[in-house]
């Protein structure tokens, strides 16, 4: 259900940014969503469609770029990227001495405006 809060926040940021730059209509919004962020793209699309009505983004499309989970393992000294949402050990050497550096993103990247 928190996808509604996320959609609401991203719409507010987009509308503020569009107005501040002197434009009046948002055509598209590009966001990056980490695979471990807990946000379901389908639910975010649904919430976005429901909330955009009546705003300057009412005709906007939402483009979601999914960011995979990536990290570094200190045991085998290698960087890794995985298709999994959550990591339990280094996918290369199975050590638990790893750190995650991406995959939790919830970022708004770019707007297309008129």
């Amino acid at each position: 259900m928190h996808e509604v809060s996320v959609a609401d926040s991203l719409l507010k940021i987009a509308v503020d940014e569009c107005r501040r730059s002197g434009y009046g209509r948002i055509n598209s919004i590009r966001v990056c969503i980490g695979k471990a962020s807990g946000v379901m793209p389908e639910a975010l699309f649904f919430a976005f469609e429901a909330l955009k009505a009546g705003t300057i983004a009412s005709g906007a499309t939402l483009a979601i770029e999914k960011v995979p989970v990536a990290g570094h393992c200190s045991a085998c000294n290698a960087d890794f990227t995985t298709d999994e949402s959550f990591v339990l050990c280094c996918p290369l050497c199975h050590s638990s001495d790893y750190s995650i550096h991406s995959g939790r993103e919830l970022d708004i990247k770019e707007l297309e405006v008129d």
Partner: protein
Amino acid sequence: MKLSVASKILDANDRIAHENRRLFSAAGVFVINLMSSPGAGKTSLLEATIAGLKRSLNIGVIEGDITGTDDAERINRLGVPVVQINTGGACHLDANMINEVLLDLPLDEMDLLVIENVGNLVCPAEFKIGEDLKVMILSIAEGHDKPLKYPLMFQESSALIINKMDLRPFLDVDVGKIRNDALSLNPSIKIFELSCKTGEGVEQWITWLQTLNS
């Protein structure tokens, strides 16, 4: 026309959480965000914690529920300041909800504030509210598969309380698997096994809380 934005979507929440944190620090209050699924024992743990710490620490509580005041009434009976937030449907507390009730609590007189989040093993883990640390409860009746099914909360929490240990003889639950999976997801998580009903194990949890506050 393309506009580059590069902003965090939850930035508005994070900024308010940061402000809450600043107010808590200025008042000298240590803040715990207590999370679990519905019925795992958050309010029971609070009652046991207040009973164990009331003489040495001034405690306050914020209760988060979708609706109702049952939990706040339970805490109120123990004579500690409590504020009830009803989210009216939202499945988690966010930083703004906390910010709006801060003036209702005597922060300057408090050492420890426990914020009981809405019962939900998913969304509360994703919203900072200004806490010093997150603590989660899993009751063994929920089953040993929960860490791998709901990994984010286990990753975000500094401590895991495994509650309802008194039910162990009646359940086919592998407590060792809960511990191992939680530690795989979060090697630094501190784990306590206890029963709020019998009181067994509660003392270790209370001793740990006291070390955090000293």
